[in-house]
């Protein structure tokens, strides 16, 4: 006899795993750093949060820890991807050749901060 909360927890973990797999798929298929970061950040944030909460629901003694882990993932993942994207652009990683617009380049030149790691 499996308790109902274990079933819900397993469903949440399965959904999380599915999104993680999709994120990994995006990492392989999409063309450049920035597009890959898009897939990685979104799927991996929600997937990891879903797995953490699933573990907490299936095993209620772990729920507070799981919530803290989910909260910090939600807080830190976007910041890290933002840092990677900015550093990649400033160290000269080009956009994919199919990109349609780049307003950042001109703005960097205008502000005179291009190439400056600050």
């Amino acid at each position, binding site marked *: 006899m499996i308790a109902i909360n274990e079933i819900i927890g397993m469903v949440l973990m399965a959904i999380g795993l599915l999104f993680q797999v999709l994120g990994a798929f995006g990492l392989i298929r999409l063309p450049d750093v920035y597009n890959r970061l898009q897939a990685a950040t979104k799927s991996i944030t929600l997937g990891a949060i879903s797995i953490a909460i699933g573990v907490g629901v299936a095993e209620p003694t772990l729920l507070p820890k799981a919530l803290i882990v989910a909260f910090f993932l939600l807080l830190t993942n976007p910041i890290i991807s*933002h840092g990677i994207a900015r550093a990649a652009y400033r160290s000269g990683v080009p956009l994919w050749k199919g990109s349609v617009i780049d307003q*950042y380049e001109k703005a960097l030149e205008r502000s005179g901060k291009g190439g400056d790691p600050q």
Partner: protein
Amino acid sequence: MLKRPVALFLSIVLLMGAWLMLTTSLHYQEIIAGVLVSVSLGIALHSILPKAGKGNTISRIFYFLLFFLVLTKEMIVANFDVAYRVLHPKMPIRPGIVEVRPKIRSDMGRLLLSNAITLTPGTLSMDWIDDRLYIHWINVDDKNVDSSMEPFDKVVGEVFP
């Protein structure tokens, strides 16, 4: 040292709460260690808590909860959007970097807005230069640039103007 007693109190309460959630035990040794750690960390670090913004506290709390609801919904939409773009055989992407001008002025508001934008469908915030935000957008819509930050500019602006 005690220029901001409310901030000191709040940071000690927050740190103690996090400690209790991490240890999940009410044994007296855990409590003593937690009080020691959270009081010393609170005294050392309470000055970096952001200052309270202007405006009605109750409506700010309401808008903060609304922000979380919108964020959750947008994150789920974003994941289906990624799944669609990744699994589609032709990969319907049209990437580019666009410039938007949010109305928010405070640091906390800008942090929340850029994080939220990163988690919404198809957008990734890259940099602030002066009061402009640069966003990498996976499917650029030239006519409607502001739609990349639309759900959040107003809600976050109500919490941290």
